[in-house]
């Protein structure tokens, strides 16, 4: 099986899907000739042309809103938000509109759009090119939310998302684009939304996480294994709907849980997971539910010192695991 970078998986998946189904269009800023500022859409414009790879005006609300309209009229639009930080002007169209189409019309209409957005830090993007806004959307009934750094998972999840009859947000970790390489089958496949995956089995303690933190957790787990701390790493992959079954299963197995995400601590999706665990696995718990998250500051700063201090490293995960394991 060929190994691919996350960014290669993104491009290849869109290319495969678009080649087979001309209802699929791609809309966004600089997605055409330039191939995206991060090159996520490189090659698509050449093969599918102006009509299906659409350089839009610089106005996110209309990009999402027009995608919603296009989905009403027979198309399956994929929207690229250039950086997830710039999704905010489209918040109304996503939250008030896309998310509520099916419900408010009593199942008469639906909104099969996909919104892709590169998220996360580590590329010196400072306050406005490093954010992790996924929790805002995971709070919204009517939306489905994917967040991943895995090339293999992205490929299957993106395909499922495009054919999901409801709006799906896909957050791709931008630092992972050129960092994470995995075996990715050439042929198409689906990975269901709402299914987490155990990326590493263990019985001492569970790390529940997603995105690039999965890989940092795996790195930490390798080191901890040397000291007989066997960490199970659950990669959520989808943040809404949450795979509560998988969450409860791992907690019931290990009795201890560390939740890790890059997004700010307070009000992040980690709180929701901790709450679910505290309510539904109370009697299985052998220790407090601990969160290791991005600090409650607006985002990491430009200077590398800020980035280093903000980001959660394998070492920080390791330290947190040791503390909890010793509880």
């Amino acid at each position, binding site marked *: 099986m060929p190994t691919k970078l996350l960014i290669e998986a993104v491009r290849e998946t869109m290319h495969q899907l678009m080649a087979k189904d001309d209802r699929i*269009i791609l809309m966004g800023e600089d997605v055409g000739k330039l191939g995206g500022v991060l090159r996520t859409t490189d090659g698509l414009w050449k093969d599918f042309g102006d*009509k*299906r790879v*659409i350089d*839009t*005006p610089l*106005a996110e*609300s*209309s990009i999402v*809103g*027009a*995608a*919603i*309209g*296009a*989905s*009403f*009229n*027979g*198309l399956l*639009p994929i929207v690229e938000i250039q950086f997830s930080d710039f999704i905010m*002007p489209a918040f*109304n*169209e996503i939250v*008030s*509109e896309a998310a*509520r*189409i*099916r*419900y*408010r*019309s*009593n*199942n*008469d*209409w*639906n909104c099969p759009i996909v919104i892709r957005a590169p998220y996360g830090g580590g590329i010196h993007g400072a306050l406005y090119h490093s954010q992790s806004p996924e929790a805002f959307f995971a709070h919204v*009934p*009517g939306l*489905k939310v994917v967040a991943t750094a895995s090339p293999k998972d992205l490929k299957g999840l993106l395909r499922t998302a495009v054919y*999901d*009859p*409801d709006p799906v947000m896909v957050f791709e970790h931008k630092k992972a684009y050129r960092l994470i390489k995995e075996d990715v089958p050439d042929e198409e496949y689906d990975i269901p939304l*709402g299914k987490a995956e155990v990326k590493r089995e263990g019985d001492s303690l569970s790390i529940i996480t997603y995105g690039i933190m999965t890989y940092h957790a795996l790195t930490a787990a390798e080191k901890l294994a040397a000291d007989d701390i066997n960490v199970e790493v659950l990669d959520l992959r989808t943040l809404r*709907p949450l795979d509560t079954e998988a969450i409860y299963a791992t907690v019931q197995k290990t009795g201890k849980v560390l939740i890790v995400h890059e997004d700010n601590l307070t009000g992040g999706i980690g709180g929701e997971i901790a709450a679910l665990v505290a309510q539904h696995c109370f009697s299985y718990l052998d220790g407090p539910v601990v969160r290791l998250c991005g600090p409650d500051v607006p985002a990491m700063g430009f200077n590398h010192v800020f980035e280093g201090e903000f980001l959660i490293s394998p070492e920080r995960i390791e330290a947190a695991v040791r503390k909890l394991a010793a509880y």
Partner: protein
Amino acid sequence: MASTKEKEAADSAAQGVQVSAEIHPIAGEEAARADAASSENGYDAEHHAIANTKPKVHYTDLGLTPDDLHKMYYFMLLARSLDERMWLLNRQGKIAFVISCQGQEGAQVGLAYALQPGKDFACPYYRDLGIMVTLGQTPRDVMLSVFGRAENTDSGGRQMPGHFGIRKLNVPTGSSPIATQNVHAAGIALAFKLRGIDGVAITSIGEGGTSQGDWHEAMNFAATMDLPMIMMVENNRYAISEPQEKQMKIRNVADRAVAYGCPGVIVDGNDILDVYRASIEAVRRARAGEGPTLIEAKVNRFTPHSSDDDDKRYRDPNEVKMARAQQDPVTLFRDLMMSEGVLTEEKEQEIRDGIKRQVDDATEYALTAADPKPEDLYTYVYADHTEATVESQYESLGE
């Protein structure tokens, strides 16, 4: 730095500066007249003067038959009559909320009548009952919506009245946040273009709504890509309590078309034929791939903003009284047809009787129709896993 020199320099500077005319080049003359005559509050005799200066067009020149005219009249009167019945029901305490089309039916029916149902799309706003009945929403369905009944097609009782949406009529589900539907229309038009179908997406909004960023983005998106969209602004001079002057400095919303490079047309919304004339030209442009058109219909709002509003707080009651007397699109069209010999007293009575029967029937039907069931709260959040939602919610509610 420049502070001391500014004044001296300003004169000479002003000469060379290119300053845009503040007024739409074509509507300019009329606008000047209107500005002179407008009064800050109360009845604004000139609100329609701009549109009225055009030569009247004869219906036969628009390709319309007497039968078309009867239909157009029927749709206007049906919308009006349903609306009046709603107010009655509201005052009787039988329904919670009304938001009205009254005064704007000419604009609504005039535009919708130019469409090809089953092909074209419409993204109306909450006042557009006239558009809805023209496109085919039944009186029963309308009444079911104001009672919030389960059987209503718009939303099955989930949304407030005026939140239209019927898939089989190509009317996407609408919401409350102002101007979002305009952007959807641009996207629908984009899909028409990409799919090679010569369909049209119409959308509408009040003049106040054009202040929203989404309105600008919708116009710019459609104009930049030459999309088959028609944006109708029903300018009734109020956004709830705020007069047009608090929404914009300009008098004619149609002038905004200049910013997008598409035609901006002012029509007399009280004259359904004037609206229709502009609409078929806009439809022709759209189908021919010539891009969007902005149509501003000068209309009146004959009611308070909604049944929750008290317009005496900000509006002279005389204003409405005079507008109803002189500028009622329904009356004006009837009078026109009478004078043209297209409508007789008998024919009119026949239409009125038919509508009364329909409105009565619809009211009766909706009065006793079933409400949604409590468990309907949990359905249709997504296409799948509805079950899961129901169960988990009952659990979370501690039951």
